[in-house]
């Protein structure tokens, strides 16, 4: 399980930015927080580090998302089931 706090930097075009925020809200893995102009705080929750990376790609692929910053990461301890991975 990976829980990350991320800061999304949005495109300067407000329509694209709003669409991006919408798309973020639609993604079940993401909780959208406060928006400060071109930046919005989100929390991403996935089942594993691998899925987390997939999500990273997916977020970057959203039109209107310019940049992602990592603010916080919390990983569960690795288990045998998870193949030694968090």
């Amino acid at each position, binding site marked *: 399980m990976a829980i990350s706090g991320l800061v999304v930097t949005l495109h300067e075009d407000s329509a694209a930015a709003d669409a991006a925020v919408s798309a973020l809200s639609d993604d079940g893995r993401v909780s959208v927080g406060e928006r400060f102009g071109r930046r919005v705080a989100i929390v991403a929750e996935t089942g594993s580090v691998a899925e987390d990376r997939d999500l990273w790609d997916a977020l970057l692929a959203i039109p209107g998302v310019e940049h992602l910053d990592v603010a916080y990461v919390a990983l569960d*301890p690795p288990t045998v089931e998870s193949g*030694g991975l968090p």
Partner: protein
Amino acid sequence: MAMHRWNRAARPALWITLMGAGAAAAFASVDRAAPQAPAVSTPLRWRLNTPAALIVPESKALPAAVADKFGARARSVEARAQLRAYEGAPPVIPHATVDMNVQTCRACHAQGLTAGDKVARMASHTYLQNCTQCHVEADGLASLAAPGDPPKPINTFVGFRAGGHGGTRAWTGAPPVMPHTTFMRTNCISCHGEFGYDGWRPDHLSRSNCVQCHAPAAEFDQLAPTFGKADLPDGLSVPLP
């Protein structure tokens, strides 16, 4: 100096491949004579547990230091606890020793070193001459072991274990406080340095004056034990009748 380079060379070659040229250059340049702050995205010293999972294009990879930090930290807490009867006990010695000459301990534990997959950590406390007064072999008298030897005792003691959490902070981004006191732990590098524990190494080893920024948590009276509240005079927890 030469010893350090030899130890680095002993590490898996795969790691060097993953790092890429930029990292390798930074890697090779890090020595005591010319310390450089490492670039943020090139973790230099972390030993990766599952390199296969991290063979991804570098731009998409989370910094390995962040990715595995909490897992490695927890594993290190466990590894450390295995050698101790309780948190704060002197660790037993997991290898045979030269009984007569305590100073042979210092050959490996004065500076710390790795040999193959074993790590000899620097002693975490100041120089005390009589090492074997506190540290005894985990399996002593091995050379005299025989079938009829007395059986190992069964003891129901359960020792206190530290939480292993990161220290509290004054505010976001502030240096974390130490979740332990500095009694017998004045040498930060012993656990947090080059030959320290996985997951415990900071990304700013080049700053050598640790206690300039990091202090023991306020709840620890420096004259009371390593953990627990010292909220009564003289560190006693039980009020005087």
